[in-house]
């Protein structure tokens, strides 16, 4: 049950550029949510709404085939960020 839990629809910033993909498969290895699968020797997105925007795929793709905006997802940190104009940590995971 835990792995199929999904959050809001159509909000994630994940973008894939298939023309740059070489099919190395590292994105499939690092993604903890099963966003990618191999299709026709290239990585293909299974369900974008599964993405947690952790950035692991983007960071490990040598070919620049992935774009995503990663950042702190903690509500308290975002609230503080909205009020102060920055994105500081909430202090609970320092």
């Amino acid at each position: 049950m835990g792995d199929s839990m999904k959050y809001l629809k159509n909000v994630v910033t994940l973008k894939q550029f298939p023309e740059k993909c070489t099919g190395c498969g590292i994105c499939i290895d690092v993604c903890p949510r099963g966003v990618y699968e191999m299709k026709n020797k290239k990585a293909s997105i299974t369900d974008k709404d599964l993405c947690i925007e952790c950035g692991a795929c983007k960071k490990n793709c040598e070919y620049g085939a992935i774009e995503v905006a990663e950042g702190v997802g903690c509500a308290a940190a975002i609230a503080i960020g909205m009020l102060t104009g920055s994105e500081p940590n909430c202090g609970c995971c320092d």
Partner: protein
Amino acid sequence: MSVNCCGTGEKQATPCCGSAPAYVSGYIETPAGKVQQVSGVWSRQESIGQIRCRISGSFRMHYTVDPGLYGIGNPTKESPVFVSANYKMSFDILRRELNGIYGWILVLDTRGINVWCAAGKGTFGTEEIINRIRSVGLEQYVGHRRIILPQLGAPGVQSHTIKNETGFSVKFGPVYAHDIKQYLNNGYKADKQMRTVRFSLMDRMVLTPMEITALLKYTLIYALAVFALFGLTPQGILFKNALSEGTLFVIMGLLALFFGAYFTLVFLPFIPFRSFALKGFIVGVAYCALVSVTLDNPLLHNRYIQIAMFTLFPVITSYLALNFTGCTTFTNMSGVVKEMKIAIPLYVIALAVSIIALVIYKLVSWGIV
């Protein structure tokens, strides 16, 4: 490079300074120096430590092991290298799951933070791994050039950079340490199950104590404010009134904490809608309705109290639920930002309504309105 142990003057891979910690079961002699050997079996200390980590923020903040190289079993130059954070719980879980095999454990300085959070911050990261490999001189201990990382470290780690800088290629192991042995047996391959993070009922339940303890200090302030409000008369604050009228709202506040911080998280998949703020709000409304129909308190028949109740407590449970988005394994920042942009203005309006309703209630009870 290895350091001199201040006690014996011998070279070893981890500084010790005095007697070795309890989890060190001995030393491994290598041509490059002594390496602390760790046990794969937990003592009571580890079990108690794990529980305390789930309850006390101050405990877990200082629950660390020294960074450096350790060995489990009797590792040789062919044995695999596993990379860990220096949060003791991460380290303990790893060595427990490695029990029975020979390996090296490279502990990073993640400032005592677990793998996933540290990866998000960058402390379980490319630079630290490169520096740690160099500072322990990993190439002196193993003949191969492979390190195995926990998959949840990936957000902080650029594997190709590590390979280029150190010659060590990164293999991403499974999400959960308990799959490591299978991963090794499969020839360093993880299947889809092993590569997926979960959020089971147990995962959710272990998070709740920390959330609730973090909020307890606010409950005292809340209780005092509520008692003061209900006890307020034009002559001053009367304790009799405070207790007889205020107790209901104080208890409802405490229950809202329970429903928002515990109930909503535990029953998360069963509550409708995807929005956490909405899930929390629904639970709050249901809980207030339940109290309204089951409790026979004259206050509950008062129109203004009803308005205050149905605006204040569902907002509390909604906010507590929204706060949980930071500790799940399936939410994303874009979604949380969207939720907050809608929820926060609504919270402000609802709280204003709640306060106005309570003020009117007081004015009516004083006969002014």
